[in-house]
Each structure stands twice: as structure tokens, then as C-alpha cells.
């Protein structure tokens, strides 16, 4: 088995880093060597946030080489478009149906791309739009979008369902566990 790569992209505050952490903990429990890389500090003040998750028998670089991601998990549509270059030609993009306008757009200086999901699909036929916000609402808390997306991507990863649930139980405060488990299950059911 070669190293497999999941690239997560989103906006500060969406829980991208926590989702990356949960993916890693599941993959570690499943017995893989795992590496993850991300950037803290200045990048978190509402900026674009990314996390590189890599797993396999033995992982060297903590960064995914450009064009080598098997899966691009976009928590926000514009961030999906921005980081498409990291995805393999035949890679899968899971894009959350959510558009968060950056300050360059809210100030009227630039335009948020129209038909952004079509724009992504044109370049990557393997595009799956996930209604993360809708799932999170059904689960009972709009902040559980990241667990919904973890659920959606979990089907593509070689980790048993029970392992994911165990990791989620261990990673959230007790009162948030059931909401996040439900969001995970709904996301996984697709």
C-alpha cells in the first residue's frame, strides 16, 4: 500500500483542524502510520485554513505533494476551488454546500464566483456536494458540520465504523457527543 492523502480546506472557525484530528486518530487506531500538518498563528484570524492528512505503512513528508491528494475535503466552496491543485486528476472532492464570503468580497472589491459547484465539477467529475449544514441542523447543532463531513469522508477510508465512533466519543465534551455522533452517522449515510 502506498501513502494515501486527504487534504482538508476551509475557513477559520469551521472546525477544520478538529476534523483533521479526528481523521488522524481514527487512522492511527486502525494501525496506520499517520502524519498531519497545519499552520497556526496569523492564519487563524478568519483566513483560509488547511490541514494535510497522510496515512500508510510509513509516511515521510508531513505535507501532501501538490496534485497528490486522493480526497479534497472542502468545508467551504471557495476554499475547494482554491485548493483544487492539490487534488489528483482522478481524485474525489467532497464539497460542503456552504459559501462564506471573504472580506475581499464583502468589501465589494472582488466577486464570489457564480455557479461555484459547477465550476468545480467541470474540472473534477468526481465531485460530491455534501449538505453539511443541513445534516448538522438535523443532528441538532449547526456547529456539528465538521462531524457531518467526517462522516461523509469516513466511507472512503479504511477504518471500521465503530472505530470512528469511539474516537468521536473520546474527542468531544460529553454533552456534545450525541449530537456529533448523529451528525457523523447522517454524513456517513450520505
Amino acid at each position, binding site marked *: 500500500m502506498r501513502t494515501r492523502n486527504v487534504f482538508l480546506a476551509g*475557513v*477559520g*472557525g469551521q472546525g477544520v483542524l478538529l476534523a483533521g484530528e479526528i481523521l*488522524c*486518530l481514527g487512522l*492511527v487506531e486502525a*494501525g*496506520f*502510520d*499517520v*502524519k*498531519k*500538518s*497545519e*499552520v*497556526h*498563528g*496569523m*492564519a*487563524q*484570524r*478568519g*483566513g*483560509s485554513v488547511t490541514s494535510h492528512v497522510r496515512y500508510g*505503512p510509513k*509516511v*515521510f*513528508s*508531513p*505535507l501532501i*505533494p*501538490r*496534485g*497528490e491528494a486522493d480526497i479534497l475535503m472542502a468545508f467551504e466552496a*471557495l*476554499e475547494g*476551488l*482554491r485548493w*483544487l*491543485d492539490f487534488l489528483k*486528476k482522478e481524485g474525489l472532492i467532497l464539497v460542503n454546500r456552504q459559501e462564506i*464570503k*471573504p*472580506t*475581499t*468580497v*464583502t*468589501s*465589494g*472589491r*472582488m*466577486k*464570489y*464566483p457564480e455557479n461555484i459547484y459547477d*465550476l468545480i465539477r467541470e*474540472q473534477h467529475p468526481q465531485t460530491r456536494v455534501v449538505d453539511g449544514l443541513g445534516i448538522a441542523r438535523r443532528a441538532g447543532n449547526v456547529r456539528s458540520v465538521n462531524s457531518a463531513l467526517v462522516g461523509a469522508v469516513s466511507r472512503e477510508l479504511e477504518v471500521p465504523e465503530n472505530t470512528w465512533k469511539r474516537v468521536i466519543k473520546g474527542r468531544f465534551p460529553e454533552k456534545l457527543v450525541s449530537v456529533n455522533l448523529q451528525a457523523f452517522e447522517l454524513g456517513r449515510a450520505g
Partner: protein
Amino acid sequence: MASPEKQFLSGNEALAFAALDFGVKFATAYPGTPSTEILENIAEFDEIQAEWAPNEKVALEVAVGASLGGVRALASMKHVGLNVAADPFFTASYIGVKGGLVVVSADDPGMHSSQNEQDNRHYAVAAKVPMLEPADSQEAYEFIGLALAMSEQYDTPVMLRVTTRVSHSKGLVERTATRSLDPSRVGFEKNTAKYVMVPMFARQRHLAVEERLLELRKFSEASPLNRIEWGNRELGIITSGVAYQYAREAFPEASFLKLGLTNPLPDKTIREFAQGVQQVFVVEELDPYLETRIKALQIPVMGKDRLPLCGELSPEIVSQALRGTGSEPRHAQAAAIPGRPPSLCPGCPHSGAFYAIKKLKLTVMGDIGCYTLSVAPPLETMDSCLCMGASIGMAHGLEKAYGAAPEKRTIAVLGDSTFLHSGIAPLMNIAYNKGTSTVLVLDNRTTAMTGFQDHAATGRTLKGEQTPEVDLEALGKALGIASVRVVDPYDLKAFEKCLQEEVKASHSSLIIARRPCLLLRKKDRPPPKQVDADKCVACNLCLQTGCPAISLTAEGKAQIDSVICNGCPICEQICKLDAISELASD
């Protein structure tokens, strides 16, 4: 495959666990990306005394003291922090240690959150101290143990140099050590000739340092820290730190000389390796540190003729450098994708201050912190950013260059934590040299940019204990500043008036704009604001605060995103038509 007892840790977490497991008893730092989490994690351990220092110089001096007291000590800092600590660093090299002393330098290639990307490996050479460069979390853990042992064996501080991609990447770590403190070492022993660096003694110590380097060179040759991994003999790669990981990924078949101890370098091992391969490629981030020294051994190598001097490396950059091919950007529309730069948070008290500064058309000598983000449109109220605390000295310098009143329109702007880090001496300088500058301290009661660390004016220690607060007003007065005023930046009228008066005045001023960072009180935030579309005339004045919660509707009017609005009173004071008010709760 991973064994279950391994932990999934970032480099910084691994360094913290190593400090615990290898018997560090004292650790200190000033926060700075990418090093901050080292001390935050160490602070969790009851076994280690851990402190925030006001700056890196103080941190290192305290760590040197702890070492001379016989305990193992650690000081961590970001790369530019070592500039601040360079003074004690160079002479601590002469004094040596009693308990092991490790200085962690966390460099930031790519400048994810820094003002430059200096390569701190040069410091180890200049200060004549040994340097270790871990390549992942497991090595970060192990190298702390090795560094402490080397420090005690060779009587020297040891520099451990990490980079952002070691500090902030996670990997599996097996914790191997548990060391209990050797009590026989604790206690200061008078040793004048070694600890008192007057010229007479320092000359002797310099000789000792040079002898130490010769011994360390022998150690470097024999050390498993510098290891050869033979592969295909056509290509030999010499590398260190995270660059090793990128090169292993890009050239899995090649032979490797993986250097963990990069000062002093193992010349013989390097020669042996170079002789064993057809061509040598040196893979390193930033400066040609290894390359220059290997070339001095008259070994022909490829290096910075193919790799960039600027920015981070990555597996594809390393691959392309030698193969000349690689993945080109496949998607052409990149230029049309709106950027998502970081910005001040919705409701940030700094926004109000900068709105007033912009209105008064002041020139701003800026500094390092969240407020540096006001450089971006629409505020664009940052005219310089040099280093921690520089704003105050630079404002005084501008006044010296072009005179003071009445048209002086320059102010220095910096945060509370940055002010305490290195703003006190330049403020004293203004008073002493009869300057008339206005210094604005944006006092949000925390070190916000690096993640809300306490400092000497917050009343809390790193361990969460109550402690006396620095009285900033009294401090300004004690330094001789003529006018010291405290004002709330949420009160736009009062703030603007205060600023205008002090800028015009022909005396030195310290304005403390006091309002705690909004993110410190997540629980009791006021309700969000809303725009009355009937009253809004699309003047767009409220957009000039740069608040991310305010945007334009299709008709060009303002609207407020109630999900991210933090309910601050800034925009409603700016609106001349009373169109902004509290959102009625449902």
C-alpha cells in the same frame, strides 16, 4: 504499522513530553509562532516549573540561572526571539552549564506568521554551540534527551532548531524515557573564573569553547545522529530537519546522509558519503548552510543552484529541482479566486481605534500583533512593522527627522504584551530625550495573536495563578511621560478626541486604549446588531471598519451577518443615520 502505545503528537507536544520525561525542572518562553505550544504543554506538568517571560532575553537569562542552580532547563522561542536573546546566548556559550540547558529555536520558513524568514542555524555557529535538528515529532522527543545529555557532558548550552513543519506537524511518538532528577547536582557553586565574564576570565573561557568545539566535532563524527542510509549510489542526498522527509518522499531510491547534529558537522562522514555516490544533492530550506560548508570541503554538490532560497520546501519542489519536471498548476482560474486574508475579528476593539486613526490621517509606526492586520484594506492604517517594540523608537526617530509640532501626525501603535516585551526602554527614551511622540498601547489584556497567553499585566501566571499586575499608567508616569491617559476604544468619540489632543500637544503622551479582547469572553457576548434597510442610504461608512460581519447587499446597502457579529458598539456609532441597532431576540 503503529503500535498502540504510541501517541499522536505535534512536534511541540513531543518537545513538552520530552522535557517531562528527560527531567527538565524549569522552562520558560515568550509566546511566538511556531513555538508557543511548547510552553503551553509543559505548563500542564506539575513536575516542571514553567513561566512566561516578558521577552526572550529574560527567558534565556532565567534559564541560564536555573542551569547554574543545577537543574535541567529549557528556553523556547521563535526564530526572531533568538535575536532578542542573542546577547545572553553568545556569552552563555562561554559560561557553560551545570544542569543541562536547551535553547529551542523555532524557525518559520515561508513566514506563515512572522516578519522575516531568517535561518537561525547561523546562530549556532556564531555562538559556538552545538545544534540538533529533528525531522519529526519522534525525533523532537528523542533529541531533547540527547541535547540535555550533550549539554551536561560538554558543558555547553545546546540549540535545538525546529521549523514550522516540525512544530506544527503531528506524528506517532513512542515515549522511551523516564529520568528522575539527580539531587547531587542542585545548588549553586561559586566558580568565578567560569561564571564572571570579565575580559581576564572570558579570554580563558574562549579557549575552552574552542577546545569544546574540537571535542564536539569528534562526537559529531561518531554520533548516530548523523547517519548514512545507503540506497542507489547514483544519487546521494545530504539533508537535515523536515527537508529530509521531503527528499525521502521525492527520491525514495537515493542514498541519504541524514544529519541530526548540524553544528559542528561531521566532515569525515560527509567525505565518506560523497565518495560513495556519483553525485551529491544538498536539500535544505532557506540558506545554503550545509552546502557552503560541504563545498568548503571541496566536494562538488548541487544545492541552491536548483532549490529556492526563499520560502518552504515541499516534496514537489525537491522533486522538480532535480528532475526538472513536476506538477504544474493545472487550474487556470487562480487569479479570479478572491483571496481570504486574515483580518481583525468582528467586534475587535482595535477596529474602533484604527477607524479613528484613519479618520485623523495619522502616520502609524506599527508593531507585531493582531493589530498588524490593520495594514489590509479598508483600514490600511499601518505604515511600518519592523520588530517587537520597534514602533516607539521609530516614531521618535521620525520626529527627529522632520520635527515635531504642529503638523506632526505620527503615532506609535502597539499591543500590551508587545509593549511589555520591548516597549518600555524606547518609551523611556522618548521621555529622556524630550520627545513629543504619542504612543498608543492597544491594551486588550492578553497576548491575542498567539492564542491568548497571559503576561505581566494580566494578573495571571502561565500556571493560572493570581499574581500582581503591572500598572501601565504608573509605569508611563515613572518613565517621565508627560501625559498618560486611559480611554475605551469602544467609545469612538472620546477616543478620537483623546487621540487628537495628544497628537497636537507638544509633550510626550502615552494613551492606553483599554478593552479586553473579545475572544476572552466567549460566553457573555452582547446580542448581534442589525441594519435597518429603510434607514441605510448605502454610504458604506460602516464598511470602513473592515469588520468581517458587515457586507454589501445587492442594492449596495450594508448588512450584518448575525452569526459572526459579536455585538460590539463600533458600527452603530459610525452610522450617521441610526440605521444600526441591536437585533431583537426571538
